[in-house]
């Protein structure tokens, strides 16, 4: 009865809403009504890293303490504000918090694996880095069901955070981020969507301090009837900020990849340097790629560039490769890999870059037999 009541109360946005025009959330109530199997996975996609750091395993949104190593990460109520976001507000407010004191810089990344066994699960998170603290967080979504996340990020002056996420397997993954980047601080968010799950990535990144840096981008790989959907706003509130949004979408079969990315420059945010590069590659004529770069500028001394292109594989290059003995399938894989590399090669940390590259490679291998 309770589950049914919750189901009726979903009140999910429809495609009439501009920010959700390319989304299809119709499967979510159905997924949410399923009962999670609750079985624990055997092997987990932990990254091979030079140093061991904290590891958190969440199964259907609940921490599996026996297979986690908290190392100072707090589990419990989380200060995260959804501010009316239609998916973010479904997150009840419990989850994990990473708080690092001034100048703190652990040597190893925080690794988090979210394993879903069906049904819906919601989890909040907060990363709060004090002055000059540094951290890397790598999240991997596997399994099935609907994993819904709300992540609040607060970076104080000079703090640096790298947040890398990959979604694999089946179901639906929705991630809503609310970030504030302080003076001279740096936030890099890298995404790889390379499973069979549909995804919705929502981000509002505020460059709230002078000279702040933010980078948000990734590779969206889709096939079948899969949908990846990104809605991202980078808001320059103070002068001297820099932002980069590099997205590479690949859609095969009847899949859809959509990226709406906006740069907002507030009055007074002079010397803003913003760049957007949204590129799409259609591997099939029945696939769809939507790219919507937007600039909203209320300051006069800014440098903002945006580019959006959607294309197919270069037939000339495919013939050139074939003339050297490379089959069409292998040629397509080489060109697609090169296209996606723009986004993945930006990941600064080698362990993470290598793992994400291998993950994308696996997807491409399957794409082209």
């Amino acid at each position, binding site marked *: 009865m309770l589950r049914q009541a919750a189901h009726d109360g979903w009140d999910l946005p429809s495609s009439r809403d501009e920010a959700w025009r390319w989304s299809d959330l119709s499967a979510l109530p159905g997924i949410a009504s399923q009962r999670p199997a609750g079985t624990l996975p055997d092997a987990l996609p932990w990254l091979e890293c030079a140093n061991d750091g904290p590891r958190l395993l969440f199964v259907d949104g609940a921490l599996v303490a026996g297979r986690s190593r908290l190392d100072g990460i707090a589990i419990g109520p989380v200060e995260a504000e959804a501010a009316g976001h239609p998916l973010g507000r479904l997150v009840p407010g419990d989850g994990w918090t990473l708080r690092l004191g001034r100048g703190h810089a652990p040597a190893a990344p925080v690794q988090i694996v979210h394993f879903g066994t069906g049904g819906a699960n919601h989890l909040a998170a907060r990363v709060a880095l004090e002055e000059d603290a540094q951290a890397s967080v790598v999240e991997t979504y596997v399994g099935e069901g609907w994993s819904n996340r709300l992540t609040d990020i607060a970076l104080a002056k000079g703090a640096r955070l790298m947040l890398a996420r990959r979604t694999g397997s089946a179901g639906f993954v929705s991630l809503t981020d609310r970030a504030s980047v302080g003076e001279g601080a740096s936030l890099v968010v890298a995404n790889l969507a390379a499973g069979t799950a549909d995804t919705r990535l929502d981000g509002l990144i505020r460059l709230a301090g002078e000279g702040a840096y933010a980078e948000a981008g990734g590779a969206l790989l889709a096939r079948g009837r899969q949908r990846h959907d990104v809605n991202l706003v980078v808001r320059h509130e103070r002068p001297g900020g820099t932002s980069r949004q590099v997205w590479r979408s690949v859609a095969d079969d009847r899949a859809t990849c959509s990226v709406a990315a906006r740069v907002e420059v507030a009055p007074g945010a002079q010397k803003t340097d913003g760049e957007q590069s949204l590129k799409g590659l259609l591997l099939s004529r029945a696939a769809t790629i939507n790219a919507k770069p937007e600039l909203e500028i209320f300051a006069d001394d800014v440098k903002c560039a945006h580019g959006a292109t959607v294309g197919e594989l*270069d*037939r*000339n*290059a495919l*013939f*050139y*490769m*074939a*003339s*050297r*003995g*490379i*089959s*069409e399938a*292998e040629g397509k894989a*080489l*060109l697609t*890999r*090169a*296209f996606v*590399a*723009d986004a993945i090669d930006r990941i600064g940390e080698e362990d993470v870059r290598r793992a994400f590259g291998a993950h994308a490679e696996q997807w491409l291998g399957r794409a082209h037999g």
Partner: protein
Amino acid sequence: MLNITNLHATVAGKPILKGLSLEVNAGEIHAIMGPNGAGKSTLGYVLGGREGYEVTGGSVMFLPGTVRAEPVEALPSSNLGDQEKESPSTGSGRTEEWIDLLALEADERAAAGLFLGFQYPVEIPGVSNVQFLRTALNAQRRARGEAEMSAGDFLRLARAEGDALGVSMDMMKRNVNVGFSGGEKKRNEMVQMGLIAPRLAVLDETDSGLDIDALRVVADGINRIMRAPDKAVLLITHYQRLLDLVVPDFVHVLADGRIVRSGGPALAHELEREGYAQVAA
């Protein structure tokens, strides 16, 4: 090695080749000359198997012959006509029988021993030369049932070919033809030809866009790589300049989709002197 009989081909429905016949034997270099629009590049693309180039009649038979053993042993040698190159094959997948070239996909033609040199080599952003060539070489070896070449052997071979053609390892690591000058692209074509070691090379305007020094390097490459009793070359060119450096055994004039005249190297000089209109008339 190559037997083209009464070949007809269209591009976008328009007839370009109109009954072209040509026979090329192993050990021979043939030059195809002719005015713009005669069908020279179309001939190259039809042989290479490019989509959009539709064969409407005739046949192209290819006899690659037996390949010599491991290409690794065939490191470049400045000793032209090296007799050791004739050593018989051990366990090659290449056939001793005539192949219907037109029945093969472009990549299968390459694996059978055909190399197409491009007038405008294609730029491939994001794919390095080394990666491209190693993928190509190993795809061909797989297609012929041979073992793949190790990274070490490949790099040794690539370095040797690059050195012979003035292409540094630095260039080999760059993206395929991206940011290369016209001359560098053509030299890169020769590096590829040297590594792939084909039986028949169809070289389309390999001399275009080259200054005199680069022309010499490229010509030396063609002679070194392809002047052999078991190999053959079809040189498609506008000008006689290249033919002073790569001396053909036969020269053919292609006009309006057919070979209208054939002769020895002297024909190229005659063409240069008197023009196509005169000679082809």
